[in-house]
């Protein structure tokens, strides 16, 4: 990825705001996706990723802000923008009674492909996505992975300049996930701009040329995975004094650690049995740190050390781990309200 902000921009979101009743989904989100970039939106469920993607795809209008896709104002020229876009939604809406081929034929007609080109594209995509054996079976019999491949095929049918995917591999088997990753990389290499959302850190880390971390409807960090991680500096240490500590014990450990020289930050990780996530200046800090804990009668049970990850980037920006953020929203989600938001 050699593109920078100075070069061609394909998607540009400026100050997007959108509320669903009292709930704020987007609180001034701005984003720039360069041409030919595989761009990731990372954030916990409920961060506003889906809302932002639905706005890019002209399915939803923002309360305020502007959206440009391929140089066009998406709010003023939605139809022209739709021709540029392929969209793979999170909830796979498939007509179970049609075969994969029939669904693709319908999709092709809606994009006004002529019969010859349509059949050629179906053949091509079916091979690319490993769907040949399934194409003439009814969609109702497809596995989750096959459905997602079909959805990806229908998003790619008209050879769009921009492909938008909402959580494309959530809940998928490893084989389907690998197949989809490979196709996305190929597309990027051929010059397609790909914008995808995910709450899987590894996915964004492995796939994305650039990423934006989204939290509370805003971009809180943006850059390439490498630049974001190296900007953090320091080493990461995960430490436990017991396999599963309770909260008061974790607090005591934290107090001891915070007094150790060379320790920059200590966070109690609720999702991982109150383990402690530390940012330390370098590896030499660790031995004195073990001694301090032993002196406080809190000997180290396990300790692992690593370079910063995207989770650390997220932690640094929000003060909580992505997993904790997920757990926090898991209980407060309202599937009925979410379905209503997506319903016309």
């Amino acid at each position: 990825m050699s593109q920078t902000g100075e070069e061609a921009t394909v998607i540009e979101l400026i100050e997007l705001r959108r509320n669903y009743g009292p709930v704020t989904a987007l609180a001034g989100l701005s984003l720039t996706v360069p041409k030919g970039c595989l761009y990731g939106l990372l954030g916990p469920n409920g961060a506003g990723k889906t809302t932002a993607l639905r706005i890019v795809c002209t399915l939803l209008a923002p309360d305020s802000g502007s959206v440009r896709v391929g140089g066009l104002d998406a709010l003023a020229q939605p139809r022209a923008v739709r021709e540029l876009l392929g969209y793979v939604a999170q909830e796979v809406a498939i007509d179970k009674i049609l075969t994969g081929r029939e669904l693709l034929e319908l999709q092709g007609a809606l994009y006004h492909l002529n019969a010859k080109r349509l059949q050629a594209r179906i053949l091509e995509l079916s091979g690319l996505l490993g769907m040949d054996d399934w194409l003439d079976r009814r969609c109702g019999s497809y596995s989750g992975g096959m459905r997602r491949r079909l959805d990806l095929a229908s998003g790619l049918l008209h050879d769009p300049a921009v492909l938008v995917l909402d959580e494309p591999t959530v809940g998928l088997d490893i084989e389907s996930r690998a197949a989809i990753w490979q196709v996305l990389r190929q597309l990027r290499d051929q010059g397609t701009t790909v914008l995808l959302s995910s709450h899987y850190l590894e996915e964004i880390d492995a796939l994305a040329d650039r990423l934006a971390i989204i939290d509370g409807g805003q971009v809180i960090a943006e850059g390439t995975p490498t630049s974001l991680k190296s900007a953090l500096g320091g080493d990461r240490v995960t430490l436990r004094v017991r396999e599963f500590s309770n909260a008061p014990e974790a607090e005591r450990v934290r107090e001891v650690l915070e007094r150790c020289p060379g320790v920059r930050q200590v966070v109690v990780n609720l999702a991982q049995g109150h383990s402690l996530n530390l940012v330390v200046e370098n590896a030499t800090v660790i031995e004195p740190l073990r001694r301090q804990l032993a002196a406080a009668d809190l000997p180290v049970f396990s300790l692992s050390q690593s370079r910063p990850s995207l989770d650390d980037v997220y932690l640094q920006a929000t003060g909580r781990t992505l997993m904790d953020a997920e757990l926090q929203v898991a209980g407060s989600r309202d599937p009925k309200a979410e379905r209503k938001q997506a319903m016309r």
Partner: protein
Amino acid sequence: MTSAPSMTSTVAKPGASISGNSALADQGQEILALTKRLFLQLARRPSTLVAGVLQPLIWLVLFGALFAKAPEGLLPDGMSYGRFLGAGVIVFTAFSAALNAGLPVMFDREFGFLNRLLVAPLRSRSSIVIASVLYITSLSLVQSLAIMGTAALLGYGWPGVYGLVLVLVTLLLLVFAVTGLSLGLAFALPGHIELIAVIFVVNLPLLFASTALAPISFMPTWLGWLAALNPLTFAIEPIRAAYAGQVSLSAVVLQAPYGALTGAHCLLVLAVLAAGLFLLIRPLLDRKLS
């Protein structure tokens, strides 16, 4: 990155479609594909088609038998009850089928399939509505013809060539009106449970408060008024007249409490109703589909 000139504009050709075809050809392609989908669904799940013919058939046979021994001369022109009922059941068939028009649309809304359609660069989103109307019109006419054929076999008569044309035109107008209503409901109501509830509540009362099962002269005044204002009656009476061999539009087909109605009156009312309903739901469709 905020400077507009550096945005790629080469990828976008506003106004031009991918196909390079005319807008009309593109929209034709959309409508054809969307209609084909509905017919594929029907072919693979024919139960709605079968049930749509069976239900009125049961009405025809059982209700026809119930009053088979009605005293002669009770009905106008000494008509047998089977013959009288035939027109009512034909209209009821078309009406019920059209009333269900909104269901596939509602399911598409609920399952998100509509979003798949809306993210595509449709020339006109009216294609979605037109496909539904085409589908439900053909379906209800086929069902009605099946009932007409069965009624003929049961000895309840056949309208003849001109009569058949009159019957089909009448049914078409009614189907348009009811389809408009049903599609409007499919976009206005929150889910299919509500839509089915409305269909359930509307269906039979409209049948009973019409001249499908009994002439107005049998009814108490208040019900007679209701029947004379019921759109079903405006479809039933010209069809009943056509079955009786009367195809002139200027002949009186019904003595309503407010005056005599000719076939032309009835068709006009149905046409105005259909046009009115589509005008009424248009803002709703525009809002939901834009």
